[in-house]
C-alpha cells in the first residue's frame, strides 16, 4: 500500500502552491490586464501614420481662387546616414542658400531626422535631387499660395510653416480650412518590419472646407490701386477703403494701405499685416454728424428745414466750440438744419445734439452700432471707443456730435451710414458668403442678418436728402458723377496720438463716405486717408479717390444712371 509521507505531502503542497501562483498570475495577465496587454501588443505590431488633409481654398464671389495649396517638396536629412558632414553642408548650402555652418550644426548629431529646408521651389528641389547625397531625403508637403499676391492680403491673412492660419480669414476659419487628418495603420512584425499583407486604413482624411467670400476681385483691385495712388499723391501715411452693399451687408472690397504679400508675409512689418479696417480706430470727424442729425430728426425735434441761429463760436462747460472755416462778411447766423450738415458746421451740430440731450444722443450712437463689434468674420475686431454717458462731461455732447472724443473703426462707420442708406434698417456686414464642408458635403450659407430698424424709413430718407444736397451744393461737390445721384459726407479730424492722449500736431484723417443711387442705394464707399501732407481735407484728399472708384464701380456693376445730364455727349 502506497502511503504519503510527510515529506511527499510537503512537496505536494509546495507544488499546489506553485501551480496556484501560476494560475493566479495567468488570470491576472489574461483576464484582469487583458486590454492593457492587447493594446501593448498592437502597438508593437501596428504602426500608425497620420495623413494630412488638403487645406481648403478661399474664393471671391465669382469663384476666382484667392488662396489655395500646391504640392512642393521639403528636404530632410538623417544625420546617421550622412558620411562626410562638412561636404554635405557645403553642397546643400550652395543650392539652398542656407549657411554651411547652419547645415553642419543641424547634421552634426546622431538624431534620426532633421529638416534641411522646407517647401523648396522647383529649381532648388531639382538641383538638390541631382546632388544624390546620402542621408538627404524629400517629402511632399502643401504650400499655401496666394496667386493675386498683395490683393486682399489683409482680409485673407497668411499661414505658418505648418499651414496653420495666423491672420485674417486663414486664422478666423482655420478650423474649417484645416480639415480632419486621417490615419493609416500599417501592420508589421514586432521588429517593426511592415507586413506585405498588413495594410489597412482606419480613418480617411477629410480635406478642409472651401470658403467663398463676398469680395469682388475687380473692385478690390481698383480700391488697392487708387488708394495707393491717392496715398502717394497726398504724401500720406496710409489709408483704407471699404465698398459695401447696404442692402445685404456684403463687403465687396476692403483695402488697407500699405499692403503686404501673403506669400512672403515674413518680409513685412507687423504693423502692415493687421487689417486697420477692423482693428484700428480713428476719430471720424464730420461724418459722425449724420448720427446727430438722424437722432434729432427721428425724435421730431427739428425738420431739415427748421431754422437755427448758429453763432461762430459756442461756449459749453468752459470749452469753446469753433467752426473749421471762417464766415464771409455780412453772412447771417441763420441756418437750416439741412445747411448745418451740408456746410458741415460744428457749432450748429453741437446745438442739434444739445436739443437731443446726452442720454438720447448716446442711445442713438449705440443703436447705430458704435461701441460694439459689427460681428464681421475677421479676427481682432475692435469695439471702438465711446465713453459711457455716465462719464460724459458737459462739453462731451458737443464734441462727440461732430465726431471728436469718439473713436470708431472704418467698418463701424460704413455699417452705420449703410443703415441710413438702407432706409434705417441696420444689416450686419458679412465678408463670408458660404462655407462648403467637404466632410459631409454640406453648404453653410451666411445669411443676410438684420440688426433691426434704427431709425424710421422717413428719417432715413430725410438724412439721405441732406447728404444728396451735400454732394450737390455742399462740401462734397467734387464727388458728383454726371447721370448719378450721390449722397455723401466729408470728414476731417485731427489724428489722435498713440495711446489716446491728445492729438498729433499737424496730422489729420481725411475721409469721405458716399452712396448711390440715392433713392435705392446699391453701393456705399468709405475712403480714409491717414495723415495727408499736401492737403488735409476730406473734400480735397478723399473725394478724388472716391470719384475714381465710384465711376469704375458703376461701370463694373452696370448701375444704370438715374439723373439726366445737361450736356449730351454723342
Amino acid at each position, binding site marked *: 500500500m502506497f502511503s504519503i509521507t510527510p515529506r511527499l505531502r510537503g512537496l505536494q503542497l509546495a507544488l499546489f502552491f506553485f501551480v496556484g501562483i501560476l494560475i493566479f498570475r495567468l488570470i491576472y495577465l489574461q483576464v484582469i490586464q487583458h486590454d492593457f496587454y492587447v493594446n501593448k501588443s498592437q502597438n508593437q505590431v501596428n504602426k500608425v501614420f497620420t495623413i494630412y488633409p488638403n487645406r481648403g481654398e478661399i474664393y471671391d464671389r465669382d469663384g476666382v481662387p484667392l488662396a489655395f495649396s500646391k504640392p512642393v517638396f521639403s528636404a530632410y536629412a538623417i544625420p546617421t546616414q550622412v558620411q562626410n558632414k562638412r561636404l554635405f553642408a557645403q553642397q546643400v548650402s550652395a543650392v539652398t542658400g542656407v549657411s554651411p555652418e547652419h547645415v553642419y550644426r543641424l547634421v552634426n548629431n546622431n538624431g534620426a531626422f532633421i529638416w534641411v529646408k522646407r517647401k523648396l521651389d522647383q529649381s532648388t528641389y531639382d538641383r538638390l535631387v541631382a546632388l544624390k547625397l546620402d542621408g538627404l531625403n524629400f517629402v511632399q508637403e502643401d504650400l499655401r499660395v496666394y496667386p493675386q499676391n498683395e*490683393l486682399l492680403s489683409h482680409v485673407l491673412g497668411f499661414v505658418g510653416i505648418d499651414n496653420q492660419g495666423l491672420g485674417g480669414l486663414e486664422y478666423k476659419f482655420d478650423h474649417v480650412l484645416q480639415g480632419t487628418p486621417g490615419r493609416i495603420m500599417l501592420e508589421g512584425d514586432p521588429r517593426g518590419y511592415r507586413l506585405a499583407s498588413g495594410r489597412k486604413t482606419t480613418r480617411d482624411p477629410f480635406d478642409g472646407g472651401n470658403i467663398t467670400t463676398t469680395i469682388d476681385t475687380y473692385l478690390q*483691385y481698383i480700391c488697392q490701386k*487708387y488708394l495707393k495712388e491717392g496715398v502717394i499723391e497726398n504724401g500720406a501715411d496710409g489709408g483704407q477703403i471699404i465698398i459695401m452693399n447696404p442692402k445685404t451687408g456684403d463687403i465687396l472690397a476692403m483695402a488697407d494701405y500699405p499692403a503686404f504679400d501673403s506669400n512672403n508675409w515674413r518680409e513685412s512689418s507687423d504693423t502692415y499685416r493687421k487689417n486697420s479696417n477692423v482693428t484700428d480706430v480713428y476719430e471720424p470727424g464730420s461724418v459722425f454728424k449724420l448720427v446727430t442729425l438722424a437722432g434729432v430728426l427721428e425724435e421730431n425735434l427739428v425738420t431739415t428745414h427748421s431754422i437755427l441761429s448758429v453763432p461762430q463760436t459756442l461756449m459749453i462747460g468752459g470749452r469753446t466750440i469753433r467752426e473749421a472755416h471762417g464766415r464771409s462778411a455780412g453772412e447771417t447766423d441763420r441756418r437750416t438744419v439741412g445747411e448745418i450738415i451740408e456746410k458741415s458746421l460744428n457749432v450748429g451740430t453741437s446745438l442739434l445734439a444739445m436739443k437731443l440731450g446726452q442720454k438720447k444722443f448716446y442711445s442713438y450712437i449705440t443703436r447705430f452700432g458704435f461701441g460694439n463689434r459689427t460681428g464681421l468674420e475677421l479676427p481682432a475686431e475692435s469695439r471702438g471707443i465711446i465713453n459711457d454717458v455716465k462719464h460724459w462731461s458737459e462739453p462731451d455732447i458737443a464734441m462727440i456730435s461732430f465726431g471728436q472724443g469718439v473713436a470708431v473703426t472704418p467698418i463701424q462707420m460704413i455699417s452705420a451710414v449703410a443703415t441710413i442708406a438702407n432706409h434705417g434698417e441696420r444689416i450686419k456686414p458679412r465678408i463670408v458668403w458660404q462655407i462648403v464642408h467637404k466632410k459631409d458635403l454640406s453648404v453653410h450659407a451666411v445669411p443676410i442678418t438684420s440688426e433691426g430698424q434704427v431709425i424710421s424709413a422717413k428719417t432715413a430718407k430725410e438724412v439721405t436728402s441732406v447728404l444728396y444736397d451735400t454732394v450737390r451744393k455742399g462740401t462734397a461737390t467734387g464727388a458728383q458723377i454726371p*447721370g448719378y445721384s450721390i449722397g455723401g459726407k466729408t470728414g476731417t479730424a485731427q489724428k489722435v496720438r498713440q495711446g489716446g492722449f491728445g492729438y498729433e500736431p499737424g496730422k489729420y484723417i481725411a475721409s469721405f463716405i458716399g452712396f448711390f443711387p440715392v433713392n435705392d442705394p446699391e453701393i456705399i464707399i468709405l475712403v480714409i486717408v491717414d495723415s495727408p501732407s499736401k492737403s488735409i481735407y476730406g473734400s480735397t484728399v478723399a473725394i478724388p479717390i472716391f470719384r475714381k472708384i465710384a465711376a469704375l464701380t*458703376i461701370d463694373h456693376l452696370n448701375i*444704370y*444712371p438715374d439723373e439726366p*445730364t445737361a450736356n*449730351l*455727349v454723342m
Partner: protein
Amino acid sequence: MKRQKIRFRFYMILYSLIAIIAVAGLAINIQTIPINENIQKLSGQVKKLRDENQELKLKVLSATRLELVDQMATDQLHMSPPKQVIYIQQKDKPNVFHHAAP
C-alpha cells in the same frame, strides 16, 4: 479491408478538395495582385495629375492677375482708360447719359 478502402477514398476526396480550394484561392490571390498594382499606379497618376492641375491653375491665375493685365495694357499696348462713359437709354425716347471716367 473494405473499411480501409472507404477510409482511403474519404481522405483522398478530402485532400483533393483541400488542394482544389487552395489552388483556387491562390489563383484568385494571384489575380488580385496585378489589379492592386494597377490601382496603386492609377492612384499615383491621379495624384500626379492633381498636382499638375494645381500648378497649372496657379500659372493661369498668376498670368491673369489684374495688376499684370493693367500693366500690360498701359505699358505695352499703350492703352488708356476712357475719358467718359456714355449710356444710351433705349426706352420711350432716346436720352443719353454720360459720366467721366477716372
